[in-house]
Every structure is written in C-alpha cells, then in structure tokens.
C-alpha cells in the first residue's frame, strides 16, 4: 500500500516537473528565443509541443524498460536561461595538462561556454572551435544546414526537450582535407550550489577527408544533485575520420542523459569510446547512421560502477547502405548495488548487402546485489550479411584466480589483476598513446577504489599515479 502511495507521489511529481518545464518555456520565451534565427525558433516550438505530447520516458517504453528516472525527476531543479553571473576562476578550469598530451581545451561551465579570450576562434587551418550560441550568430548558414538534421529520435522526450531549451554548447567545424593537429578536449563542469538542470547542444561538423579527435569529459565538482541532458550531433563527411572519447566521472547524485547522433557518409571512419568511471545515473545513447558505402564504425564502452550507480548504454547502429562494417564491444564490472543496462540494436536495412556487424557485451558481477540487463538485438532485412552478437554475464574465473594465487599473489591483488585484464581489452583499442596511458592509470585507480570525484577534470587529476604494487611475497614463491 505504502509503495503504491509512493509510486503515485512520484508520478505526480514527474507530471508536475513536466508542467513546470512547459510553464517555464512560456514564461521565458523571450530569453530563450533572444538569439534565434527564425528556423531555430520554429524547431523549438515544434519540439516543445512534441515534449508536451510524449513527456518524460517511462519504463513502459522499450528502450527505457530498465532505467527508471521517476525518482530522479521528482527532485526540485533550477533552470537558468541566461549565463549565470558569478566569479569563476577561469585559470582553475584550464589548470593542468595531461602529461605529454597537448590539447585544445574548451569548456562548458554549468552549461554555458566559458573562455579566456574569445568565445569563437578560427585556427590557421580553417578549423572553427567555440560556443554554439556564438556560432549561430556568426555562421548561421553553416549551423542551420546541419542543426537538428541527425538527431532523429521520435519517441525520445529528452531529445525534444533539449531541442526546445538548449541555448549553448560546443561548436566545432573542420573544413575539407584538414587534419586537426591537436586533440580537442571538451570539458563539461558542473559546480553550483543549487540543483541544476542543464541542457547543452553540441554540433560537430567534419569535412571531407578530414581527421578529428575529440575528448568529451563530464565531471562534477561538488555533491549537489544535477541533471544534464546533452545532445551532440556529429556529422562525418566522405572519407573523414573521427575518434571520439567520452569520459564520465560524476558524483552519485548526478543524472546524465547523453545522446550522441553520428551521421557517417561514404568511406568515413568512426571510433567512439564511452568510459564511465563514476556517476549517479548515466545514460549514453549512441545513434550511428552509416549513410554511405564503405563506412566503418567501432563503438567501445567500459563501465566500472559501484554503490547505487546506474549505467545505461544504448547503441543503435543503422546500416542504411551496403558495404559497411560496425563493431561493438562493451564491458563492465559491477560492484555493490550497481546496475547496468546494455541495449545494442543493429539494424541492417533492405539492400544493405555485404554488411558485417559484430556486437559483444561482457559483464562481471562482483556481488549478488548488482544487476545486469543486456539486450543485444539484431534486426536484419538483407541476406548477404555477416552479423553476430554475444553477451555474457559472469564472475571472475576461479581457475584463473587460483592460478595467480598459487604464484604467491594475494587474493586482493589477483582479483585486481583479473579485473584490470578484463578492462584492458577496451583500453587497448585507444589509439592516442598519452590518452591511453592516462585512462589506463585511471582504471587501475578506479579498481583500487582510489578514484574519487576530482577537483578538476578527471584527466587532469593532480595527484600523481603510483605504480600498481602487487605485493608479491617472495618468501612464498
């Protein structure tokens, strides 16, 4: 009975949040629309009515079956429609660099683009990096040509909500035949004393035969509740290649809904990583559309979660054209009460012949309280294809554990070693060496339970990495 009352309450809260948001939209129309060209204004109006119709997703929707956001939505959030004026130490955000890793750092602070010199700058090779809101002002044609063209998700209330509200985010444009010489690092920092509801919109356009590597970090600095609803659209033109790394290290009260829409033209290449080290409720929605012959997409994921954390990875790969390949590898280790969801969906459309699609999800459960729900789906309408998928849920191999222990390594270290080896399969796919080393260190730290919420972007954690010490007792060997 009590449960039912609670359920009703949270349902009421959820509806009230939807109503509150709708009301906020009407009240703040002027602020939201103030920089908008006509097209964007139209899109917003359409999106808000769509959101009004579908609302927040519930567990009755197939893709939200195992992720219940009712409880999260029942909190009270504050919304900001203008950059929050407060004193921030800009230098602190751009503090330290990853050893031997030279990057262009751009940052969103509490959902708004922050900068030292200029909100939008053009590199000598023609690459434009900066604030989305600013880009909309300076290059409206370029933005409108691509904006909201790839983020197609009909039943996704969050996407509609984002389109209606998002005012700022990151904009990157790489012209044709350019190899971005530095990795671009997008840092998203949340640090506010009230419960923030943040909505960003990022747009990345990569021209023909160009190359881009992008590191996308989500971090939080305090322990307040927050809700981030980010939509990123990445357009990869013919022959271009993109390396995309998502790193998430957030406090346990955060909710992050991260939807990324990749649109790949012929012969383009994508490798995408989603590495989740901490986070209250993290949902990564990756939609990949292979829209030209010869495209290739490698999607990797690693999640190491404990306590009450919940991680939900959704990967939707649409093979719309022949001769494309896709490869998914998602691995996770779950401790305490943590729960993980993996929902991989490979769609091979009619006449998309010569498609190869592989999908793997492996999980290790360390406790009986942790749960995994995995759904590797294949939907195939063409016959000349090679598709396979595999999913396993299990635990550390007793024989392997025994073997290592028999070599004089303590049980604790033997477990660490095995877990690290399990995670290393994903880490080894990272092609940027300094980044790989750094993530490797972080994973080791995370497995030892030493990685907390950093003062800074997780990659920039100040304390030096100690070498992993396996405490081998030589007297027993």
């Amino acid at each position, binding site marked *: 009975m009590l449960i039912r009352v609670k359920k009703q309450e949270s349902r009421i809260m959820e509806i009230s949040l939807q109503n509150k948001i709708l009301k906020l939209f009407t009240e703040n129309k002027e602020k939201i629309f103030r920089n908008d060209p006509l097209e964007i204004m139209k899109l917003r109006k359409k999106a808000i009515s769509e959101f009004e119709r579908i609302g927040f997703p519930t567990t009755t929707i197939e893709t939200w079956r195992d992720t219940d956001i009712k409880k999260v939505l029942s909190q009270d959030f504050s919304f900001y429609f203008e950059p929050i004026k407060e004193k921030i130490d800009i230098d602190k955000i751009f503090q330290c660099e990853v050893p031997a890793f030279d990057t262009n750092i751009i940052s969103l602070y509490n959902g708004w683009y922050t900068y030292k010199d200029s909100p939008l700058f053009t590199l000598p090779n023609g690459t434009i990096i900066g604030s989305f809101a600013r880009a909309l002002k300076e290059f409206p044609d370029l933005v409108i040509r691509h904006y909201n063209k790839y983020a197609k998700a009909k039943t996704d209330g969050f996407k509609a909500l984002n389109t209606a509200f998002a005012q700022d985010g990151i904009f990157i444009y790489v012209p044709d035949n350019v190899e971005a010489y530095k990795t671009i690092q997008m840092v998203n920092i949340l640090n506010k004393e009230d419960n923030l509801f943040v909505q960003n919109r990022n747009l990345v356009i990569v021209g023909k035969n160009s190359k881009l590597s992008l590191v996308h970090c989500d971090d939080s600095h305090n322990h307040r509740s927050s809700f981030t609803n980010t939509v990123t659209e990445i357009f990869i033109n013919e022959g271009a290649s993109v390396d995309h790394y998502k790193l998430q290290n957030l406090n346990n009260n955060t909710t992050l809904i991260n939807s990324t829409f990749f649109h790949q033209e012929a012969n383009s290449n994508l490798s995408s990583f989603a590495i989740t080290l901490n986070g209250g409720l993290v949902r990564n929605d990756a939609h990949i559309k292979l829209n030209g012959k010869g495209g290739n997409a490698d999607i990797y994921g690693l999640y190491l979660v404990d306590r009450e954390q919940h991680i939900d990875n959704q990967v939707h790969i649409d093979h719309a054209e022949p001769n494309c390949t896709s490869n998914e590898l998602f691995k996770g280790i779950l401790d305490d009460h943590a729960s993980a969801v993996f929902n991989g969906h490979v769609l091979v459309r009619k006449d998309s012949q010569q498609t190869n699609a592989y999908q793997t999800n492996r999980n290790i459960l360390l406790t009986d309280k942790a749960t995994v729900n*995995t759904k590797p*789906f*294949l939907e195939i309408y063409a016959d000349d*294809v090679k598709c396979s998928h595999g*999913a396993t*849920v299990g635990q550390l191999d007793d024989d392997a554990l025994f073997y290592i222990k028999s070599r004089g390594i303590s049980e604790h270290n033997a477990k660490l070693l095995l877990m690290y080896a399990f995670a290393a399969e994903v880490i080894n796919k990272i092609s940027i060496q300094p980044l790989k080393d750094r993530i490797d260190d972080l994973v080791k730290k995370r497995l030892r339970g030493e990685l907390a919420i950093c003062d800074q972007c997780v990659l920039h954690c100040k304390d030096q990495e100690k070498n992993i010490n396996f405490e081998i007792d030589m007297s027993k060997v």
Partner: protein
Amino acid sequence: MEKDKNNIIDEVTRSDYKYGFTTDIEMETAPKGLNEDIIRFISQKNNEPEFLLNFRLKAFRKWQKMKTPEWANLKIPPIDYQDIIYYAAPKKNPKLESLNEVDPELLDTFKKLGISLEEQKKLTGVAVDAVFDSVSVKTTFQETLEKYGIIFCSFSEAVQNHPDLVKKYMGSVVPYGDNCFSALNSAVFSDGSFCYIPKGVRCPVELSTYFRINTAGTGQFERTLIIADEGSYVSYMEGCTAPQRDENQLHAAVVEIIVLKDAEVKYSTVQNWYPGDKDGKGGIFNFVTKRGICKGSHSKISWTQVETGSAITWKYPGCILLGDNSVGEFYSVAVTNNHQQADTGSKMIHLGKNTKSTIISKGISAGYSNNSYRGLVKINKRAENSRNFSQCDSLLLGDKCSAHTFPYIDTQNSSSIVEHEATTSKISDEQLFYCQQRGINAETSIGLIVNGYAKEVLKKLPMEFAVEAQKLLAVSLEGSVG
C-alpha cells in the same frame, strides 16, 4: 547459374500445402461471436462443474480489458473476435468405445494426414489423442496406459473424472490473465488433452496429440495440461494441420506443464498449420502460450519445436525453474517462407539454486518472410550458481526476407553465468561449391546444408517426429538459396 538458383527457390516456395483438404463431417457449431452466453453455452455443452464456469467468466471479464500485444515484431491485422465461431464439434455419439465407432470420414482425414490412428496404434505404439476443431475425438491406447495408472484423456473427460487434479493445476502455470490470448483461451477453450503420470512411472509409450482445424470461420482454442508426479517421465508430442482457406483462422492454445521432484517431461511439437498461399493470403494465426514449471528439485522440462506452418506465429515456450537443480531446455527450428511471420523464442526464469537452462534456436527465413527470435533469460537473486547458455542462429535464404534476434538477459546475482551468442548469415558460396564439386546438385546440396544446420535440434525430436520434421524441412526449404 544464378537464374537456376532462383528457379529452384520459386519451385520450392510454390510447393503446395499438402494438408489443405477439408473433411465433410456434420459439425455442430455455436453461433459466431463472443459474449457471456457463448461461454455459458460451451460450459454447458461440456457439462462442466461450477468452478470451471467461474474460471471462464473471470478470464472473459479480464480479457475484455486487455489489448492485443503490439510489442512483437509482427504485423498482425486486426482480429474481429466477434466474427469467430468459438465452438465446433463433430456430431457424434456421445461415447465411443472403439475406433470402429469413430466417423469413417474422420478416420480418413487422419489417414490422409499420415497419422492413421489405427496404424499408429498397431505399429508405433504411440498413444494418440486427436483433437478435431477443438474437440477431442479419440484417444487410443487408453487401456494400456491405465495399467500404469497414467491418465491420458481429453480435457473434458478429465474435468468429469478428475476434477480435483484439474482444479488444482489448471491456471497455476499460465494464469488466465497472463496475456490477451491466454485470457481468451481460458474463457472459451472447448477441449484439449490432459495427462497425469503418477509417482515413479516411466511412461512406456510416446503420448501424442494431433490438432486439426476443419470448419471454416472457427478458431481453435485447446488447452493441454500435463502433470508429471515425482520421479516420473513422459515424452509428449503434438502435431497440427489445417485446411487451406482464404481467411485467417485463429489458434490460441494454452499448454501447461507441471513437473514435480525428479520428474522429466519432454514436449515436442511439429507445427504445420496452413501458412497461407504464396501471396500471404489466408493461413492460421498461431498465438500460443506454453509454459512449464519445474516445481520440485532435480526436475526437467525439455521443449523441442519445429515450426514450419502458420501465417503468424507468436509463441514463447518457457520454463520456470523453481526447484533447486532443475533443468530447462529449449530446442527450436523455425522456418518461414513466402509472407509468413514468426516471433518465437523462449523464456527461462531461474528461481532455484543450481538451475540450468539451454536455448538452441535455429531460424531459417526465405521468400518475403520475417523471422524473429525473442527470448528472456532471467536469473533471480536466489538462483545461485545458475547457468544458461543460449545460441540463436539465423539463416537467410533470399534477399527479401528478414531475420531478427531480440534476446533479453537479466541477471541479479554474482555466482551465475549467462552466455548468449547469435549469428546471422546466408549459406556461403564456398559450402555450396564444395558440395556441388562433389557431384551433388544444387538443390540437394542446399537440403544437405540446411539439414546439417538444423541437426542439433532435429536430433532432439523423438524418432517418429524426426522423420516428419525432416520431410517438412525438405519441402519448405530444399533449394532455397539466394
């Protein structure tokens, strides 16, 4: 060469449904439509006790509030439930003493099906219960079975003679409100088979039921209840056919299996309902709820199915593994051709400790068909050291068909291991070439390859069925390669 191949596909896909005759037997039917009066009529016809009528009415009231499920990857045309005859029975003497008293037309029908009751009785030693338009017409071998204390009879007889068993177990595995079709079945089922194997008895013969829909405009709603008491064993087979008709006919059956401590039930199905013609017209809608429960420890349920018929198949035989160390198995070959659609798979719910389950599913799609595997493996917190292995392969023959895999894996403890793997591919040119260069023609090679592909499942079928199943596969598929 390519052209030759296509011709072969055409020939094969055009091959006729050979069970598509109708039998002229005087039938007694209820008026079309569904309401409480019809349910009372059916109940009265079967002379049912009060609890059964109440069960039907409860189910009917529940059903009225339910909607046809839409989550399956199927295109189900709207079903007009008021346009179906819910009761059709051959007009016959109320009690039949021997086969001689069965309407000769009916016997002929079964002979045409190749399952002559007499022949079966004499040659194979299989006890048969034949269900004709929802009404059980003849059960053979009853006397032999009685010696062992085995009860094998039509559902309506069981209701009369063993009401306590029926009352205790009916609806305990598939509750009437489980889904829209099980609710409909619970409300209107007319007959079916009932089987009880007493303690420690190993059933000496294979038990078998044949279902046939004959009358136009009818639906078939039969109910099967199998109870295997402690330490017993039974192998149960089920086969089905229907005449060719332009309209779609509804078949909504419920099968419940209860397995107690140390007992084992092996349930095999060769489903060959009329699949509709090559343009997708007509055919049976096969919406079946099959579920077994391993109630006691060390019990076992094994489902084997060969699905070749039906316009639409919606079927997920499942096992609830409640007893410790119980075992659930599911072996399936699902073949779809022309415009057939199938959404089928298995549910394994692990509740007891050390429970094991295996799912082997082979899907073969040809023509314009749509074949999906949908399965659930759920390991509950208490199901320590449980083990599941699932393998779902799909074979695509032709470029107009589709094959999908939708596995759901929910794991809630750390000592269990769940493995799932699936592949989708077509017959490789290398395999074909290899066979052909040995002097085997294209058609035979494909038959060979497909049979090899499905062998893992076919070898689980009882002998009598394996032959039929292999023939069916040959008819449906030989030569279809794109």
